[in-house]
């Protein structure tokens, strides 16, 4: 037990050190790299907290997609980096900010130390009702059955975020393709990796989705994996991001929400409530929602990384 605590202590020190470095390092590009390392270390912390589903999500989104997004953006803003750095506040504002951060941290630390014992938990209720869903993974049961409305609204939030990003499109590019046209050597190393890896990634993503019913995994993790594979192929110049005016694209983006809503409304006459599943059909319906959502999430996340359209569709 003490050895485990020693390991956790070292992990915490490492996480905090990388976090401090990410905040204080001069170069923003380095900060983006630091955030990727931070996300992966945090995923380890989630494993130590017995939340493997959250660990997979953190590693994929925190360590992966957020860092890609940040690194791309810092490269584009590099020209203004020196001017921005000159605007760093003096010692007094910095001290005040440190006081603010320190007191909030101290307050939260007191709350952590004063958490009630025994801890309140909903685990018994979940354990009591999980049999009705036919699922083995309690987190998936919460996401898609007990708190399905949260997950449905979250899918809507993702689409809204993408619409908001797209509204930033300059008028002349509306309906065009997001991101620059990536020109890389078709015989180069990046293209080589992008030819070999994505098919393997597709198999792994379907696996992560399929085991998500009973083991850690699910549509978010699988969708992020697919998004990463698609982005790899795009950035290696092997394929292009589709113009955002395409009908099929818009169809795929809302497919998950549409299937979710359709099954939800079907629950009103069949099972007596919105988003209730008819007895015995819970698992297949949940798998159907997850499969459709995985595709929508994959396309939404990848397009969020790519940003608003930047060039016209030269078809």
């Amino acid at each position: 037990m003490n050895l485990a605590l020693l390991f956790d202590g070292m992990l915490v020190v490492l996480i905090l050190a990388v976090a401090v470095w990410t905040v204080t390092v001069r170069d923003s590009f380095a900060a983006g790299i630091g955030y990727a390392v931070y996300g992966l270390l945090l995923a380890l912390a989630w494993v130590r907290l017995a939340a493997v589903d959250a660990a997979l999500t953190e590693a994929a989104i925190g360590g992966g997609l957020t860092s890609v997004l940040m690194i791309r953006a810092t490269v584009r803003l590099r020209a203004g980096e020196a001017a921005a750095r000159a605007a760093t506040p003096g010692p007094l504002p910095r001290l005040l900010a440190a006081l603010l951060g320190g007191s909030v941290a101290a307050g939260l630390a007191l709350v952590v130390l004063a958490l009630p014992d025994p801890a309140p938990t909903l685990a018994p209720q979940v354990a009591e009702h999980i049999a009705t869903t036919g699922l083995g993974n309690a987190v998936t049961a919460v996401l898609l059955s007990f708190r399905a409305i949260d997950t449905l609204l979250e899918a809507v939030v993702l689409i809204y975020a993408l619409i908001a990003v797209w509204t930033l499109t300059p008028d002349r590019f509306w309906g065009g393709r997001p991101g620059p046209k990536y020109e890389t050597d078709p015989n180069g190393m990046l293209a080589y990796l992008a030819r070999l890896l994505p098919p393997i990634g597709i198999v792994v993503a379907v696996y992560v989705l399929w085991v998500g019913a009973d083991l850690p995994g699910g549509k978010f993790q699988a969708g992020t994996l697919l998004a990463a594979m698609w982005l790899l192929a795009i950035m290696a110049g092997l394929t292009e991001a589709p113009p955002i005016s395409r009908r099929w694209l818009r169809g795929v983006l809302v497919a998950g929400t549409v299937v979710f809503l359709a099954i939800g409304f079907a629950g009103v006459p069949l099972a007596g409530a919105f988003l209730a599943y008819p007895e015995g059909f819970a698992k297949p319906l949940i798998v159907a929602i997850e499969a459709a959502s995985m595709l929508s999430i994959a396309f939404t996340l990848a397009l969020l990384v790519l940003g608003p359209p930047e060039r016209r569709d030269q078809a």
Partner: protein
Amino acid sequence: MSQLLDLWTVLAVGAGVFFFFAGTVGLLRFPDTLTRLHALTKADNLGLGLVVLGLLPRVGSPLAGLKLICVWLLVLLASATASQLIARVARRAGPPA
């Protein structure tokens, strides 16, 4: 028999950890990006390979063993290609060849 397997696992995983450690020492001691990349890719390939080799006799089924080998191969592909990509950038940015 089971003791022999235990010994094998301890030896192979121990050797794997040794090469991981050697790679880390190299990463810290070697003088520039390119030499550090050598330390990282070669030591990680061998380190993970030995750990997988040590764990192979403990898996329940041949398919689970194949899964372990797939993990090793994927790490190999990722580290070998990523190191070459970094090496190209480092050579262009660093002192001329």
